[in-house]
């Protein structure tokens, strides 16, 4: 299976040759390489998250690449019903046990560390997930968030290829 995806970063003096590893407690699915499935949201991400005061060039870059993987190494919580409900069940099973033990709800980081530390889903290389647009910017019907804002988390660099610069855009 192959997917063409987008990666957004600040404009740098030296062009990226490979996507940046996203690290930290706020990454939805833990450390990994994050991509946008649709160009419009890679642009939105640049405008909203890569155009802060620290960005002196007032530009950001969008890259394209290809992800190549087997379907059984892929959890698709966006378009596959079975993947979605199984994913939800595992998150909630973990949360239930965590609450029982710690008397508080787990954080995003607790869940991701648990999955990684215990090598759960060890063969899974790609997870597709989504949220919904928070504004009407990319929506043609006001207040109706019918579009999925889809991302892919990759934890195996080997499946990333054809990483090329696509375009630079100015912050507006």
């Amino acid at each position: 299976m192959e997917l063409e995806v987008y990666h957004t970063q600040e404009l740098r003096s030296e062009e990226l040759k490979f996507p940046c590893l996203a690290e930290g407690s706020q990454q939805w699915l833990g450390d990994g390489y994050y991509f946008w499935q649709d160009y419009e949201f890679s642009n939105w991400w640049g405008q909203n998250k890569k155009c802060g005061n620290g960005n002196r060039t007032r530009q950001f870059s969008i890259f394209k690449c290809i992800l190549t993987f087997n379907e059984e190494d892929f959890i698709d919580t966006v378009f596959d019903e079975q993947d979605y409900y199984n994913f939800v069940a595992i998150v909630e099973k973990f949360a239930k046990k965590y609450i029982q033990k710690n008397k508080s709800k787990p954080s995003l980081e607790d869940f991701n560390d648990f999955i990684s530390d215990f090598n759960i889903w060890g063969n899974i290389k790609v997870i597709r997930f989504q949220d919904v647009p928070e504004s009407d910017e990319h929506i043609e019907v006001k207040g109706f968030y019918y579009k999925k804002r889809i991302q892919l988390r990759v934890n195996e660099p080997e499946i990333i290829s054809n990483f090329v610069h696509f375009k630079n855009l100015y912050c507006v």
Partner: protein
Amino acid sequence: MTANWNKLNKEFDDLFDKLTDEDWNNWTSHRESKKALRREVLNLKARIQSIMLELKNKSEEFSCNINFETKANLIEDESKAILDFNTKRRIAKISTDDYTPPIAA
């Protein structure tokens, strides 16, 4: 076709249902060191893949597929061996120093 949930759920349940209180409490003790190791492995793998992509691009640019492909394969094999060795060494160190969680079947 989708992810093999029979396998994934079995792996999860086998591990999850057997976790003792001690396993659970010990899990939190060394999260940061394990996370640092995972990041190191991920960064090394990314560097290897980045070099591989660059070599492949050059191979196409100069139309000398055999030499570059051969060289790329050698670098990849060697890098993987080093990465494998370093990872095993670090994991061995962590497991002798600290607690290691059970690995899913």
